[in-house]
């Protein structure tokens, strides 16, 4: 039987394709999520870089203290080695904080050794 009427029949195929709607909804969701997530990701990345910057500074400072110390301090060297290992493996904010904390402890031990 022949078709009668039906406005949809007269539209070009690509215009009514569900593809447009699906793609449009995907773009809506994608853009929405991107706008919501971008500041968080950016802040997290900045935090991470900041934390690693402090950690690297602490490790460098500890290395200077080690070179300035006339005696060997085995415990401090162990702590610094651990800190450098963590730093070599990269990682997140927690890893950076731990590495920096270890390096600062080592630094304190070496300085104490110089003065003591």
């Amino acid at each position, binding site marked *: 039987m022949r078709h009668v009427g039906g406005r949809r029949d007269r539209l070009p195929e690509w215009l009514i394709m569900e593809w447009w709607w699906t793609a449009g909804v995907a*773009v809506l969701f994608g853009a929405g999520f991107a706008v919501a997530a971008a500041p968080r990701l950016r802040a997290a990345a900045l935090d991470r870089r*900041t934390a690693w910057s402090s950690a690297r*500074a602490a490790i460098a400072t500890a290395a200077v203290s080690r070179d300035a110390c006339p005696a060997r301090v085995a415990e401090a060297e162990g702590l610094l080695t651990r800190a450098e290992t963590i730093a070599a493996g990269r990682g997140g904010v927690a890893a950076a904080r731990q590495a920096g904390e270890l390096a600062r402890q080592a630094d304190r031990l070496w300085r104490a050794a110089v003065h003591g």
Partner: protein
Amino acid sequence: MADRRLREAARWVALAAAVAVLVIFVVAQRQSADVSYGRSPSTSAGVTEGAAGELSDATVPSAEQMTAMINKTDVVRLPGSVARWDEDRVRAAMGAERMRILVAPPGLDKAERDRVRDVRDATIRVIGTEVTGGAYQATGDSLDDWRAEFAAGDVTNLLITLIAGLREQPPPADADGVRWREPAAAEVAAVAAQLRRTGLYTAPGATLTEVPGQNAFPGREPLYVAQPRQSSDAPLVRYGPALTRLFPGRPIVELHGDWIEYHGPDAGDFAEVAAAGFYAQFGDRLSRYAYPQANVLGAYLGRVTDVRYAGLFDRPLPYRPADPLRVALPVLPWLFVACVGVFFALSMRSLLRPLRRPRARREHGTPARLAGLTALAVEMSALTDSRSESALTRGITALTAARSALDDDLPETHVRSLLTDAEADLDQAARLLPYPGYRPADYLRERLA
């Protein structure tokens, strides 16, 4: 700032509009599933026995009387019966077997039909033009069959088919027994004159007195020619072609008893479809009952309306007001895409914007402090001894870290805390020097003043 807030508002508006358009579109899909283009305005064709005047005044004797009659002679025609057949062909089909045929009039009610069926001695029963016998019923299935049956009451082919079935033999080929003749000029003139006056010509013996109100041919005025069923062997008079020449462009409906033919515009497009559908559905009832021609015509016109409405032949559909939603529907995808585009563009803008800003906001104090401390460290490096050099080196290390943090756009507070560490180390080194004025606080105050 106001500009930025405006853009944010526009972004949300675009999102809301896109969602609204999507919802409208989805809801409209459900609606369009409900829409029917084939809702024909014809009246219902439902019928109950007697309601449409299909019962005639004819009646039949009791079963015992009919049995007695059929035992006396092989063919019994009850008063009012309309069926006729070619005796020679039927007798030839019977061969040597003796078959009794009981012919009853059409339009019997159920009790009367049961009485006819109770006549056990009749081999074949013909009620109206309904032919039954044994366990069989012979029915026509082509326009030729139906034309012979309803226009002329000719059941020859049906009888022969039924007899062949009863004798368990293959049915012989059908023969078209209907004869036609063209009307004479005087006959056409008389009919045309009547048609010009009223649009309806009823031949003597026909029962059509009024045309049922059906809008089967919108925009055109149909003409109706009603003739009775041809009961004798006189040929049928075919007015259609002659009237078509006389009234070009007007639909002409020609009735011969229960047989209806259409002539006129679009006849080739739908006449056969409408007739085949009509007689396939109603042939059974038409053969058994004696409908007035007006009722048969009404049902036929309803079928024509259905066929026309279904779009089987090219006529414009009757005007239906445009549904604004359906008219607006094609723009929805564009609207949706536009909203998505606006939302996407504004989102991307707000994503990319912060990357350009931090450098411009940097305070000037920190780089100056870094520069001052670096200069101090350079000056001190020429003066240090073994006691102070480790503190100085630690200070320089912290300064290096502060500079790279500054280059990396790390937060101001972080850079400042690194500088504070460096300053503390340099201060420690300066206190170990024999020369005054190298304490960072003094040095910076002096330099920056």
